Protein backbone atom coordinates (compact mmCIF):
# COMPACT_ATOMS: atom_id res chain seq x y z
CA UNK A 1 0.00 0.00 0.00
CA UNK A 2 1.36 3.35 -1.00
CA UNK A 3 1.17 5.88 1.74
CA UNK A 4 -0.56 9.14 1.17
CA UNK A 5 1.76 11.75 -0.25
CA UNK A 6 -0.41 14.64 0.85
CA UNK A 7 -0.26 15.97 -2.65
CA UNK A 8 -3.42 16.46 -4.63
CA UNK A 9 -4.21 17.41 -8.19
CA UNK A 10 -5.44 20.76 -6.85
CA UNK A 11 -2.26 21.66 -5.02
CA UNK A 12 -0.17 20.67 -8.02
CA UNK A 13 -2.34 22.69 -10.32
CA UNK A 14 -2.04 25.76 -8.11
CA UNK A 15 1.73 25.48 -7.98
CA UNK A 16 1.95 25.05 -11.73
CA UNK A 17 -0.30 28.02 -12.38
CA UNK A 18 1.62 30.35 -10.13
CA UNK A 19 5.18 29.25 -10.85
CA UNK A 20 4.90 28.60 -14.56
CA UNK A 21 2.32 31.24 -15.40
CA UNK A 22 0.37 28.49 -17.07
CA UNK A 23 -2.58 29.52 -19.17
CA UNK A 24 -4.00 26.03 -19.10
CA UNK A 25 -3.40 23.25 -16.62
CA UNK A 26 -4.97 19.87 -16.30
CA UNK A 27 -3.76 17.56 -13.58
CA UNK A 28 -5.23 14.11 -13.32
CA UNK A 29 -4.75 12.00 -10.25
CA UNK A 30 -4.44 8.42 -11.44
CA UNK A 31 -3.54 7.05 -8.06
CA UNK A 32 -6.97 6.23 -6.84
CA UNK A 33 -6.58 8.59 -3.92
CA UNK A 34 -3.16 7.92 -2.41
CA UNK A 35 -1.68 10.93 -4.18
CA UNK A 36 1.15 9.06 -5.83
CA UNK A 37 0.41 9.11 -9.55
CA UNK A 38 -0.25 12.24 -11.54
CA UNK A 39 -0.56 13.15 -15.15
CA UNK A 40 -0.45 16.77 -16.25
CA UNK A 41 -0.99 18.85 -19.34
CA UNK A 42 0.56 22.29 -19.06
CA UNK A 43 0.36 25.23 -21.42
CA UNK A 44 2.60 28.15 -20.65
CA UNK A 45 4.21 31.03 -22.54
CA UNK A 46 7.37 30.23 -20.55
CA UNK A 47 7.84 27.23 -22.83
CA UNK A 48 8.32 29.43 -25.87
CA UNK A 49 11.40 28.49 -27.86
CA UNK A 50 12.25 25.51 -25.68
CA UNK A 51 12.74 21.87 -26.62
CA UNK A 52 10.52 19.26 -24.97
CA UNK A 53 13.42 18.38 -22.75
CA UNK A 54 13.93 21.98 -21.68
CA UNK A 55 10.20 22.41 -21.11
CA UNK A 56 9.98 19.37 -18.91
CA UNK A 57 13.09 20.40 -17.06
CA UNK A 58 11.49 23.73 -16.30
CA UNK A 59 8.44 21.98 -14.92
CA UNK A 60 10.49 19.52 -12.93
CA UNK A 61 12.62 22.24 -11.41
CA UNK A 62 9.59 24.17 -10.28
CA UNK A 63 7.92 21.09 -8.87
CA UNK A 64 11.01 19.51 -7.43
CA UNK A 65 9.71 19.00 -3.92
CA UNK A 66 6.35 17.72 -5.08
CA UNK A 67 7.78 15.25 -7.58
CA UNK A 68 10.14 13.86 -4.97
CA UNK A 69 7.15 12.90 -2.88
CA UNK A 70 5.11 11.13 -5.49
CA UNK A 71 5.66 7.90 -7.30
CA UNK A 72 4.77 8.65 -10.89
CA UNK A 73 4.79 11.95 -12.67
CA UNK A 74 3.96 12.41 -16.30
CA UNK A 75 3.62 15.72 -18.09
CA UNK A 76 2.88 17.05 -21.51
CA UNK A 77 4.02 20.59 -22.14
CA UNK A 78 2.89 23.03 -24.79
CA UNK A 79 3.35 26.65 -25.66
CA UNK A 80 0.07 28.50 -26.22
CA UNK A 81 0.69 28.36 -29.98
CA UNK A 82 1.36 24.62 -29.95
CA UNK A 83 -1.73 24.09 -27.83
CA UNK A 84 -3.94 25.99 -30.28
CA UNK A 85 -2.58 23.94 -33.13
CA UNK A 86 -3.19 20.71 -31.27
CA UNK A 87 -6.76 21.64 -30.49
CA UNK A 88 -7.39 22.55 -34.11
CA UNK A 89 -5.96 19.25 -35.21
CA UNK A 90 -8.07 17.32 -32.74
CA UNK A 91 -11.15 19.20 -33.85
CA UNK A 92 -10.30 18.32 -37.43
CA UNK A 93 -9.91 14.66 -36.64
CA UNK A 94 -13.08 14.40 -34.65
Amino acid at each position, binding site marked *: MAENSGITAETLEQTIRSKLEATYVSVIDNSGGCGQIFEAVIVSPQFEGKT*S*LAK*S*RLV*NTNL*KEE*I*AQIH*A*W*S*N*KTYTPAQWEKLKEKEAGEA
Partner: protein
Amino acid sequence: MSLFTRSLLRATTRPTFYPTTATTFTKTTGITSLFARYLSDSTRAAIDNAVATSPVVLFMKGTPEFPQCGFSRASIQVLGLQGVDPQKFTAFNVLEDDELRQGIKEYSSWPTIPQLYVNKEFVGGCDILMSMHSSGELSELFEKAGVLAPGDEAEPTTSSSSSSESAEKKDSTKTE
Protein backbone atom coordinates in the same frame (compact mmCIF):
# COMPACT_ATOMS: atom_id res chain seq x y z
CA MET B 1 8.37 -6.75 -33.71
CA SER B 2 8.61 -9.94 -31.72
CA LEU B 3 11.87 -10.60 -33.44
CA PHE B 4 13.17 -7.36 -32.18
CA THR B 5 12.01 -7.98 -28.68
CA ARG B 6 13.72 -11.28 -28.64
CA SER B 7 17.03 -10.01 -29.89
CA LEU B 8 16.71 -7.03 -27.62
CA LEU B 9 16.42 -9.42 -24.77
CA ARG B 10 19.56 -11.16 -25.68
CA ALA B 11 21.35 -7.88 -25.71
CA THR B 12 20.12 -6.97 -22.33
CA THR B 13 20.76 -10.16 -20.51
CA ARG B 14 24.37 -9.14 -20.84
CA PRO B 15 24.71 -6.10 -18.68
CA THR B 16 23.57 -5.43 -15.25
CA PHE B 17 24.88 -2.44 -13.48
CA TYR B 18 27.83 -4.52 -12.52
CA PRO B 19 29.52 -5.64 -15.69
CA THR B 20 31.07 -8.45 -13.66
CA THR B 21 34.64 -7.24 -13.80
CA ALA B 22 33.84 -3.67 -12.94
CA THR B 23 35.32 -2.49 -9.73
CA THR B 24 34.23 1.04 -10.31
CA PHE B 25 30.95 0.78 -8.56
CA THR B 26 31.60 0.19 -4.94
CA LYS B 27 28.58 0.13 -2.80
CA THR B 28 28.64 2.43 0.12
CA THR B 29 26.77 0.59 2.77
CA GLY B 30 24.46 2.25 5.17
CA ILE B 31 24.04 5.38 3.15
CA THR B 32 20.80 6.97 4.16
CA SER B 33 18.64 8.12 1.33
CA LEU B 34 18.19 11.50 2.93
CA PHE B 35 21.83 12.31 2.66
CA ALA B 36 22.49 10.49 -0.55
CA ARG B 37 21.37 13.48 -2.48
CA TYR B 38 24.76 14.39 -3.78
CA LEU B 39 26.41 12.04 -6.15
CA SER B 40 29.58 10.57 -4.86
CA ASP B 41 32.49 10.49 -7.28
CA SER B 42 32.37 6.73 -7.44
CA THR B 43 28.68 6.68 -8.25
CA ARG B 44 29.17 9.30 -10.89
CA ALA B 45 32.03 7.36 -12.42
CA ALA B 46 29.98 4.18 -12.44
CA ILE B 47 27.12 5.93 -14.16
CA ASP B 48 29.55 7.50 -16.62
CA ASN B 49 30.58 3.97 -17.50
CA ALA B 50 27.02 2.73 -17.68
CA VAL B 51 25.97 5.52 -20.00
CA ALA B 52 28.90 4.71 -22.28
CA THR B 53 28.12 0.98 -22.47
CA SER B 54 26.22 1.35 -25.74
CA PRO B 55 25.19 4.11 -28.09
CA VAL B 56 21.64 3.72 -26.78
CA VAL B 57 21.19 3.23 -23.05
CA LEU B 58 17.94 3.01 -21.15
CA PHE B 59 17.69 3.10 -17.39
CA MET B 60 14.44 1.40 -16.57
CA LYS B 61 12.44 -0.43 -13.95
CA GLY B 62 12.60 -4.11 -14.70
CA THR B 63 14.06 -5.62 -17.84
CA PRO B 64 13.02 -5.27 -21.48
CA GLU B 65 11.47 -8.71 -21.13
CA PHE B 66 9.68 -7.91 -17.90
CA PRO B 67 9.30 -4.18 -17.47
CA GLN B 68 8.02 -3.47 -14.00
CA CYS B 69 6.49 -0.12 -14.73
CA GLY B 70 4.20 1.07 -17.50
CA PHE B 71 6.47 3.96 -18.41
CA SER B 72 9.45 1.68 -18.82
CA ARG B 73 7.35 -0.72 -20.85
CA ALA B 74 6.18 2.06 -23.16
CA SER B 75 9.74 3.28 -23.65
CA ILE B 76 10.98 -0.18 -24.59
CA GLN B 77 8.13 -0.50 -27.05
CA VAL B 78 9.01 2.79 -28.69
CA LEU B 79 12.63 1.75 -29.06
CA GLY B 80 11.38 -1.44 -30.70
CA LEU B 81 9.08 0.41 -33.05
CA GLN B 82 11.89 2.74 -34.00
CA GLY B 83 14.03 -0.22 -34.95
CA VAL B 84 16.93 0.46 -32.63
CA ASP B 85 19.67 -2.06 -33.21
CA PRO B 86 19.80 -4.46 -30.24
CA GLN B 87 23.55 -4.61 -30.71
CA LYS B 88 23.71 -0.94 -29.93
CA PHE B 89 21.38 -1.01 -27.00
CA THR B 90 21.77 -1.67 -23.31
CA ALA B 91 19.19 -1.52 -20.56
CA PHE B 92 19.93 -1.10 -16.89
CA ASN B 93 17.45 -2.21 -14.30
CA VAL B 94 17.47 0.40 -11.57
CA LEU B 95 15.43 -1.85 -9.30
CA GLU B 96 18.48 -4.02 -8.89
CA ASP B 97 20.53 -1.24 -7.41
CA ASP B 98 19.25 1.46 -5.17
CA GLU B 99 22.37 3.54 -5.54
CA LEU B 100 21.88 3.58 -9.28
CA ARG B 101 18.21 4.30 -8.86
CA GLN B 102 18.90 7.42 -6.82
CA GLY B 103 22.16 8.34 -8.50
CA ILE B 104 20.81 8.44 -12.01
CA LYS B 105 18.28 11.06 -10.99
CA GLU B 106 21.00 13.35 -9.75
CA TYR B 107 23.24 12.55 -12.66
CA SER B 108 20.76 13.81 -15.22
CA SER B 109 18.87 16.21 -12.96
CA TRP B 110 15.82 14.28 -13.98
CA PRO B 111 13.41 13.10 -11.30
CA THR B 112 11.93 10.03 -12.92
CA ILE B 113 12.74 6.71 -14.53
CA PRO B 114 12.97 5.59 -17.35
CA GLN B 115 15.74 7.72 -18.79
CA LEU B 116 17.13 7.41 -22.28
CA TYR B 117 20.66 8.28 -23.33
CA VAL B 118 21.93 8.38 -26.89
CA ASN B 119 25.66 8.67 -27.35
CA LYS B 120 25.99 9.54 -23.66
CA GLU B 121 23.61 12.40 -23.99
CA PHE B 122 20.42 12.48 -21.97
CA VAL B 123 17.41 12.56 -24.27
CA GLY B 124 14.51 12.42 -21.86
CA GLY B 125 12.01 10.28 -20.05
CA CYS B 126 8.93 8.48 -21.23
CA ASP B 127 6.80 11.53 -22.02
CA ILE B 128 9.55 13.05 -24.11
CA LEU B 129 10.17 9.81 -25.95
CA MET B 130 6.49 9.55 -26.75
CA SER B 131 6.24 13.07 -28.07
CA MET B 132 9.48 12.74 -30.03
CA HIS B 133 8.25 9.43 -31.39
CA SER B 134 5.07 10.91 -32.76
CA SER B 135 6.71 14.09 -34.04
CA GLY B 136 9.38 12.21 -35.93
CA GLU B 137 12.22 13.79 -33.94
CA LEU B 138 13.15 10.47 -32.43
CA SER B 139 13.70 8.64 -35.70
CA GLU B 140 15.71 11.60 -36.88
CA LEU B 141 17.83 11.44 -33.76
CA PHE B 142 18.36 7.68 -34.04
CA GLU B 143 19.18 7.94 -37.70
CA LYS B 144 21.73 10.66 -37.13
CA ALA B 145 23.23 8.65 -34.31
CA GLY B 146 23.42 5.62 -36.58
CA VAL B 147 21.82 3.27 -34.09
CA LEU B 148 19.04 1.76 -36.18
CA ALA B 149 19.12 -1.89 -37.07
CA PRO B 150 20.51 -2.44 -40.54
CA GLY B 151 18.16 -3.62 -43.23
CA ASP B 152 14.99 -2.06 -41.92
CA GLU B 153 15.47 1.32 -43.47
CA ALA B 154 16.68 0.21 -46.85
CA GLU B 155 20.05 1.77 -47.35
CA PRO B 156 20.28 2.63 -51.02
CA THR B 157 22.27 -0.36 -52.14
CA THR B 158 24.07 0.00 -55.40
CA SER B 159 22.26 -2.11 -57.91
CA SER B 160 25.13 -2.08 -60.33
CA SER B 161 27.84 -4.63 -59.83
CA SER B 162 30.56 -3.67 -57.43
CA SER B 163 32.89 -2.61 -60.19
CA SER B 164 32.13 1.03 -59.49
CA GLU B 165 35.53 2.50 -58.94
CA SER B 166 34.52 5.47 -56.90
CA ALA B 167 34.69 4.51 -53.27
CA GLU B 168 33.19 7.72 -52.10
CA LYS B 169 30.36 7.07 -49.78
CA LYS B 170 28.85 10.41 -49.20
CA ASP B 171 25.86 10.06 -47.00
CA SER B 172 23.16 11.15 -49.34
CA THR B 173 20.37 10.27 -46.96
CA LYS B 174 20.97 13.25 -44.79
CA THR B 175 18.83 16.03 -46.07
CA GLU B 176 18.82 17.90 -42.80
